[in-house]
């Protein structure tokens, strides 16, 4: 079969300690994001919240979901998902964010 090189791609067994460590980090990050939300740092609130969520998400995908040990094809799938979601959001926003722009200078 064309793409059958990565033997044991799915079969990788990660140490239990690693899982527990990831869990600890995730829990800590949850606490952090709640605490940060209680202080007002203006627009940075959103940024921090999303960055933390993204770190958490990445950890889940890489370790709990074994993406780190998965074939390239699987990684490509994840990247494609992120990319298309980005397309949906960003191209929609090209409309909403520029609606109020003037159609010509000096209006």
């Amino acid at each position, binding site marked *: 079969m064309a793409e059958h090189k990565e033997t044991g791609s799915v079969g990788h067994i990660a140490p239990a300690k690693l899982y527990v460590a990831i869990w600890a980090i995730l829990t800590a990050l949850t606490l952090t994001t709640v605490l940060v939300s209680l202080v007002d740092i203006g627009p940075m609130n959103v940024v921090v919240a999303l960055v933390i969520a993204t770190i958490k998400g990445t950890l889940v995908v890489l370790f709990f979901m074994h993406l780190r040990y998965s074939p390239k094809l699987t990684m490509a799938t994840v990247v494609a998902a992120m990319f298309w979601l980005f397309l949906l959001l960003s191209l929609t926003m090209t409309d909403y964010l520029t609606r109020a722009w003037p*159609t*010509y200078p000096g*209006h």
Partner: protein
Amino acid sequence: MWKNLPLFPERASALAWQVDGLYFLLIAVSAFFTLLIFAAIFYFAVKYRRSVHPHAVQIEGSLPLELAWTLIPLGICMILFAWGSLIYFQEARPPKDAMEVYVVAKQWMWKFEYEDGQRDLNQLHVPVGRDVKMIMSSQDAIHSFFVPAFRIKADVLPGRFTTTWFRPTKVGTYHLFCSQYCGTNHSAMIGQVIVMDPTDYQAWMSGGAGGSTGTLAANGQQLFQQLGCATCHRSDTQGRGPNLVGLSGKPVLLDDGRTVIADENYIRESILNPGAKIVSGFKPIMPTFQGQVSEENLMALVAYVKSLAQTQPKGEAGDGSSAPNTSKLQ
């Protein structure tokens, strides 16, 4: 028979020629490529038919050819794109001194309100040679304002204004279609655009057609008092709200640092959803008027606020005179 078979729409606006020009170019490009492909297929199919050409010559491909038929169409496309966009920008940019007509679309009719307060149903009267700007919104579903002879079309949305404009160049009566599907009588939501001689137009105007009740702006001024807007928006700087004189068309600095142009939609939004854009230096205390003003009243309010931009606000003068620049016929 040929009388019943017109093949090309009338051209009755300044813009129509430009659209048609691009259309002809597109037809030429399409005809060229279509004929090219048809001719090639026909020629190959005959020349290399199995009976005379039993053994195919294997040809893998050719990079130069691939590049050629990628880049040449691409180049043509960029020209078409640029031209099309230029026309579109013109369409999206109403001239400043255009005469304004407010349009309320609803299932299944068109209501027009002229600056002077005339109202009309399904018939739009405009003088020839004058720029006309349509400020439109819908009471229910989405409709679309389409006048083929002018080559313009714009959807009419509920909950916000859309605009379009045209300058009629030929006296006559033209189709007005609702081109966005809007329910049972969508196909009956048609009307006429009647382009008149300026003198006829004046006569029609003063004929009191449609029953005028004071100018739109004057109505708006009344509402402005009734709804209590005037308690906050005063013509000095003492009010709790910003002074609206001279607002329309000017850039407004918002408290989040953005600047927006105070066009019809901004004024509309300021009334219905004042929290969305807060003017810098003011508190978000203005209550929303969503659900309290009808579409028509809203248009009157907007017309009034816009009229305040003139140095001598029409509404305040209360003279109900026709638009100040009627004389500027082109």
